[in-house]
């Protein structure tokens, strides 16, 4: 297999969009850093999976999406959910098991969802959300709404059956869905290449669904933005799904419990050097964006995260009566009369 990493001829991306991309990446980064600090403070309940280092993908897509498009993501979904406009305070509070959490404490870090912003859920069982995203796209198709579903998942997810079923169905039904594989090189603690029959777990399988292989640098916000634009436009035009493989790396371990020691030092160093935010900042500066403007973005992001943290911290614990609520649409949990 010799699928090549695509370097799309970087079309002109306007200044405003670029600053928006930068701002979003910085916000997501700061959010995740803060989440980590809160964990160290012992304020985060349950597990959490940070996407530090993977921000270019969530930002690139979110900026290219229409407000009514759908995002489906995984337990590693803080960034994807926030990028659609969900409340940071709601996310922090959910991590902390508070009543003012986005899900009132009922979901936790792995299930952040904000339907009114098109964030259709974070799914914690590998592969499940690919068919579900296809279903949302089917709905958009028959409702002729012009909406597109974008579905993010990891490299490890390409080896589960649901991946295969979803890709095939999406192509056969020509659904407006974009599947984005965030290849960060690892499942939990196991390198993806040790358990995968091909080198590029998504791109090398595109042809199995009659799709063109799309392998891109997932740490380059411009490339991600352009890839998002073309794949979303294709879906919106009725030309069917795409499967994108974005190469990236998580700076930390798989989850809060994992120091990530299984990763070779050199590899980690190499990828830290390719940090999408650092690179993008340098590019912006090289493109004559004034330092002060970037610093302003950075300060505002910190402030936003600080405020959100404060709001979350002030929340009361989740309300115990929520336990027997919202199993059913009538708000109840009644299984008997």
């Amino acid at each position, binding site marked *: 297999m010799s699928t090549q990493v695509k370097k799309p001829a970087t079309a002109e991306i306007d200044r405003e969009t670029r600053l928006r991309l930068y701002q979003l990446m910085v916000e997501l980064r700061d959010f995740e850093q803060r989440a980590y600090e809160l964990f160290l403070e012992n304020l985060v309940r349950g597990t959490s999976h940070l996407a530090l280092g993977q921000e270019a993908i969530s930002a690139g897509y979110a900026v290219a999406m229409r407000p009514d498009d*759908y995002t*489906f993501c995984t337990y590693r979904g803080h960034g994807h959910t926030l990028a659609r406009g969900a409340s940071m305070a709601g996310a922090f509070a959910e991590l902390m098991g508070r009543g003012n959490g986005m*899900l*009132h404490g*009922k*979901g936790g870090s792995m*299930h952040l*969802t*904000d*339907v009114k912003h098109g964030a*259709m*859920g974070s*799914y914690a*069982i590998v592969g*499940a*959300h*690919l*068919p*579900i*995203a*296809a*279903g*949302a*796209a*089917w*709905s*958009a198709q*028959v*409702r002729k709404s012009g*909406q597109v*579903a974008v579905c993010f998942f990891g490299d490890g997810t390409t080896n589960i*059956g*649901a991946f295969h*079923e*979803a890709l*095939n*169905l999406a192509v*056969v*039904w020509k659904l407006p869905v974009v599947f984005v594989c965030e290849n960060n090189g690892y499942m939990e603690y196991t390198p993806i290449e040790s358990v995968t029959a091909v080198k590029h777990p998504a791109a090398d399988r595109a042809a199995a669904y009659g799709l063109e292989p799309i392998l891109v640098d997932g740490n380059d916000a411009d490339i991600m933005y352009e890839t998002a634009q073309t794949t979303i436009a294709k879906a919106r035009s009725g030309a069917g799904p795409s499967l994108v493989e974005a190469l990236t790396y998580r700076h930390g371990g798989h989850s809060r419990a994992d120091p990530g020691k299984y990763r070779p030092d050199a590899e980690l160093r190499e990828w830290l050097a390719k940090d999408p935010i650092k690179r993008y900042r340098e590019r912006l500066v090289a493109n004559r964006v004034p330092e002060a403007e970037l610093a302003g973005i950075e300060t505002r992001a910190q402030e936003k995260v600080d405020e959100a943290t404060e709001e979350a911290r002030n929340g009361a614990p989740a309300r115990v009566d*929520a336990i027997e*609520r*919202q*199993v*059913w*649409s*009538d*708000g109840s*949990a*009644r*299984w*008997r*009369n």
Partner: protein
Amino acid sequence: MAELSFREAVAAGIAQEMERDPLVYFIGEDVAAAGGVFKATVGLFERFGPDRVRDTPISEQAIIGAAMGAAMTGLRPIAEIMFSDFLATCWDMIANQIAKTRYMTDGQVSLPLVIRTANGGGTRFGAQHSQSLENWAMAVPGLKVVAASNPADAKGLLAAAIRDPDPVIVFEQKSLYGIKGEVPDGEHVEPLGVAKVVRDGKDCTIVALAAMVPKAIEAAEQLSADGIEATIVDLRSLVPLDTQTILREVKKTGRLFTVEENPRLCGWGAEIASLAADEAFDDLDGPIIRITTPHVPLPAADVLEDAAMPSAQRIVDTVRKSM
């Protein structure tokens, strides 16, 4: 009233709702031009066209996942899983995704969808195509579970399931597809969660579901000849469960029998028995007895399958012996 077969009643129920609500869509394997392998969806493709009645690949996870994604974004999908045994191939989608998402998002997501599936034995298909799996679904919080015993209910409960704002699994007993019965003309909808007393007797209460209801009725006629009068409750819905009717009838007669097509352990009858042993304890006059398929996979050969599943004779013998 028209006389319809159970399978015709199923098609009629879907047609009624697709006619009424343009957001109802129907997908499954071989369901469109072929009309379904049990011929329970004949005519729908011709009537509603290839957009609303669609064939799928053999991809149960994709079928159910697609239904879920569509339901959360505005459609009211019906997905067919050909045999209930195949629910196992998409059980994550059903038990972990569909059942839990509304709850985990504290109500942000609604999932008005229906999964229809052919269930149960008596057709010599063997252990991988004959299971009665209502208890699998009943055990999962977040799923409603329905099973009809006659054509009128097949239509009416299915229609209600399609209108219901929550996910409903509708089990259709294969052994009933061919039976005929009167189905009310015009729009017909039966509420979910209401059991029906189909026979009134003072001596014992027999609770049954789907294909076990006609067997219980047959048994009751024989018992009556011996002077034992049985009340028969057709459960119709496992979730929501009509505990009021069950408890009322058990208290009246003081004796409870369940007739379950499933293998014994953790069958729905266990739940009914535990309910009665708690909430009707003081009114019980004798042991609660469950009549089930033994705890084995269902064998294929006709003589074996018939002997394994509860029969009218076994019901008669069991009740008689213990009264």
